[in-house]
């Protein structure tokens, strides 16, 4: 029926149409329209045209980048969630004043839920909505409970791991630190005692030169670890210093006229370059120490505390050495006793 075009159109049509099909999206006027104006920040150097063009190109590139599906989906969700979480009623959200709200205020709305003032006969089952229902999108064809089941499993697994391992791990680490501290105390005590024994007479004997096995197992590990690090450091150092490696990149040839000094100078000599002393038995296997190291940290700690008390009448928890073997004044052997 609208095929038969009824009355002829009036002479003037309200459209402004025709004259402009140019691209307003790419319009940039305020800046060049009034270059002298204070549009740019006063404290900043005005942007040169070159800079601006670069900036614009940069911005355009960012805008023009085609986003991946996942990015788009994430942005979609983010925008939806952002809008859904923003109450239209809270003035803090700085939304333009709503005329709808003004009308409601006129009807006596002061916040809270809508509905009859008389709540005496309305059932308690009445939903008095204050917040709108949220829109939640379902993923694909997953059945009911799958999402939460997955979350629950994940959470449980994390908890199982977390509760036992994670916390235990943290505990273990804390105790290991204490073990290290106690070993240091033991070493210090030992050295102090030796110092006391040797009086200023003989040359100070360093731990490094004495057999590891002479050190009580409770703090032997500390020394061994230190020795090993030291050995490794030196070996690396030697390697770097060794002539063969230094000259390795250069062509080598045998020169009949080379004498020993030459060879020594060029590092070709087999003569020992540096020597260092490690504990004689560093490379030996130490089953006693391995057994100790395999103990749980708490047990190691207990053994150390006992050792310190026995050998030096020192309480690790009081941080005090006691004069009498009964250690009168120390509340007990456990850390808890010292709380």
């Amino acid at each position, binding site marked *: *029926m*609208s*095929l038969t*075009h*009824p009355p002829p159109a*009036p002479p003037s*049509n*309200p*459209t402004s149409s025709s004259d*402009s099909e140019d691209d*307003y999206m*790419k319009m940039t*006027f*305020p800046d060049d329209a009034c270059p002298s104006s204070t549009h740019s920040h006063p404290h900043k150097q005005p942007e040169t045209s070159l800079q601006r063009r670069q900036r614009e190109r940069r911005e355009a590139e960012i*805008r*023009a980048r*085609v986003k991946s599906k996942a990015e*788009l*989906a994430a942005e*979609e969700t983010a925008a*939806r969630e952002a*809008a859904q979480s*923003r*109450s*239209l*009623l809270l003035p803090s959200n700085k939304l333009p004043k*709503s005329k*709808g*709200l003004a*009308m409601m205020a006129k*009807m*006596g*709305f002061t916040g809270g*839920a*809508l*509905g*009859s003032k008389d709540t005496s*006969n*309305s*059932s308690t*089952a*009445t*939903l*008095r*909505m*204050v917040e*709108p*229902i*949220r*829109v939640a*999108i*379902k993923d*694909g*064809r*997953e*059945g*009911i*409970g*799958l999402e939460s*089941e997955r979350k629950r499993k994940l959470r449980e697994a994390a908890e199982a791991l977390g509760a036992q391992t994670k916390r235990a791990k943290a505990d273990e680490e804390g105790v290991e630190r204490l073990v290290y501290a106690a070993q240091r105390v033991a070493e210090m005590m030992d050295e102090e005692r030796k110092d006391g024994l040797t009086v200023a007479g003989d040359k100070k004997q360093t731990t490094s030169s004495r057999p590891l096995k002479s050190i009580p197992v409770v703090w032997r590990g500390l020394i061994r670890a230190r020795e090993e690090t030291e050995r490794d450091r030196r070996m690396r150092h030697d390697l770097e210093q060794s002539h063969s490696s230094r000259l390795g990149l250069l062509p080598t040839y045998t020169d009949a006229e080379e004498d020993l000094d030459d060879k020594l100078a060029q590092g070709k000599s087999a003569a020992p370059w540096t020597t260092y002393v490690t504990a004689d038995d560093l490379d030996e296997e130490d089953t006693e120490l391995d057994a100790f190291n395999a103990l749980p940290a708490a047990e190691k700690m207990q053994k150390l505390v006992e050792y310190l008390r026995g050998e030096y009448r020192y309480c690790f928890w009081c941080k005090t050495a006691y004069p009498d073997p009964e250690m009168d004044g120390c509340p007990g052997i456990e850390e808890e006793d010292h709380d």
Partner: protein
Amino acid sequence: MTDYNSESSDPSKGVKRTNMGEDGTKDSKRIKTANGDEQYNPYLAHTYEDSSSQQNGFKSPLDQLERHNTTALQMTKAEDGERNPWTGEPHSQQYFKILQSRRDLPVHKQRQEFLDTYHSTQILVFVGETGSGKTTQIPQYVLFDELPFQTGKLIACTQPRRVAAMSVAQRVANELDVKLGEEVGYSIRFENKTGPKTMLKYMTDGQLLREAMHDHDMTRYSCIILDEAHERTLATDILMALLKQIAARRKDLKIIVMSATLDAQKFQSYFYNAPLLAVPGRTHPVEIFYTPEPERDYVEASVRTVLQIHATEPEGDILLFLTGEEEIEDACRRISLEVDDMIRESDAGPMRVYPLYGTLPPAQQQRIFDKAPEPLRKGGRPGRKCIVSTNIAETSLTIDGIVYVVDPGFSKQKIYNPRSRVESLLVSPISKASAQQRAGRAGRTRPGKCFRLYTEKAFKKELIEQTYPEILRSNLANTVLELKKLGVEDLVHFDLMDPPAPETMMRALEELNYLACLDDDGELTKLGSLASEFPLDPAVAVMLISSPEFYCSNEMLSITSLLSVPSIWIRPNNARKRADEMKAQFAHPDGDHLTLLNAYHAFKGAEQQGTDMKQWCHEHFLSFRHLSSADNVRAQLKRIMETHDIELISTPFQDKNYYINIRRALLAGFFMQVAMRESSNSKVYKTVKDDQLVMIHPSTVVTSPYDWVVYNEFVLTTKQYVRTVTNIRPEWLLEIAPVYYDVDTFEKGEIKSALSRVTEKVRRRQAIKGSGR
């Protein structure tokens, strides 16, 4: 309506009722002599009484009844009579057959109890499960007690769905042995099948609400029955609140609230502790099974479960609930294929699979009532049918023979959030109440089984108790406009059963203010009042009313009608390419609205040339049904426009502004549904003011990426889309909706800066024009 006129020559139409002689047996002879008398008007029946002795005719047992003081016995007698107590015509054979089955319905046993309660109260809550017969029987019980010919007032029974209103009206007309559209009629949006004789009117709840806009006290009715109140549609909720008010003013108005579910106490307490009457449904126990683990893919799990039932369970039909057309068709296809294999490989029985959803043509919907297929050979495994349905089979529809229900736990639900203004249909988990309802469908014929495709724990923990009523999930712009027109001043304290969130109300008022339907004080404007006359969303109504200003009201009328019906485009899975090619023939580069219009024009053009339209539509992959109903809607809307002196004009087709005018006219209503492209080579758009990121729905004909589009609807699937879009120019926005597009009210962002640039451009252009003069 036309049928009704064509058959009104029926000889017994002129029969009168009379209070005369006690010897009813002689009446049959006199009736014939009464033929040809002047038209009998039931509303004037009481005035006839004095003169009745002079009139020959049938003595209706109804005439002796005292209104609001009848008994079940009196009524059964009246129903058992040889002649129809309402028309005086002899009852048909079919009538007695139906009557017998009616007497077997559970409600029948409580007819007297119902009447006693009905007489004792103004408001009554009636609970009866689907299948109890409440929808068909209760209105008839009321009819026999209200005796409309005595008061001249009608009985209304509301239904949430158009189809239900139509089919129930037809059924009740059959039961009363009358013609549909006469004593019993129906009224739905864009279709009114009632006549001057109508006493009982089935109607959609929305239709009753629209009627109330012009009859605030609903004075035409003596009793209003709100059926399927448990569904809590928007219109039913509003009607309940209104009726609560009206009941206080009109003590003669009776109200019955009918619900199929158990939360009737909520209705009871809402209606001042109205008495409650419950009728047990005919139900058998249903055994419920849960899955041990949540399902990865509920459609696949559904198909698997159906096949398993077919392979291992005894005889009985299957009902599977899925969410939408596409999913349902997909599942039907997969089930049918698998069953074929099963028959070949393991001698399974035959199974017929039927889809069921709202947009399915009625004839196909009807097929779900077909009998299950016979065994393939004598003594072979029994056949069964499997119905794959949306939640329309959950409450309103009764399908006998269902023994197994498969429930994945989802349905498509409308959702609206006033903060983002996102309104869409979204697949969501159902409620516990819904799940129970679904399970109940298995126990209609005999003990059944319900397979829930989720764990028992998920049922308890993940499903909400009750589905949120529609009023909490909808944009209320239309409702608020209707309420204003209904004279409700204080919307904030309006006594709704479940009042919506304040922000939803706020948005509705705000939108109506932008549409100039409400002024700043919240009073209905002239435009608002006019807009409420249209059974359309306010934005669409405003667009239609403003269209003469754009010289294209004929075209906008067509577009509006096309947008008011389901999609006219058909795209069968096996001929997508062909369908797309056909659609491309109608495509207008500037957008989908214009493409719709082109298709409609082609349709009307072909029709005028006397083409076989069904064939033509089939060839062009267009829905004849939906185009025809658009045509019907157009006629209705045109009538409303003519009534209100809205000019019907067009721009000449040759004018270069023909399409431009239409595009501009769209904005007069849809200026709040505009999106701007994010950047020059992006496919992503941002909705104006709400900043939602959307893409244009793949169904579009728009190929060039326009910077600004107006859209008809927001579609939420796993992505956010806008559907049915048309290219517009931003200058038009500033010109057509200057208040909404006041740049100062925009939040900082790309859209604000784009609009400022446009404002500046327009200003400069005007300055140049001005100085040039």
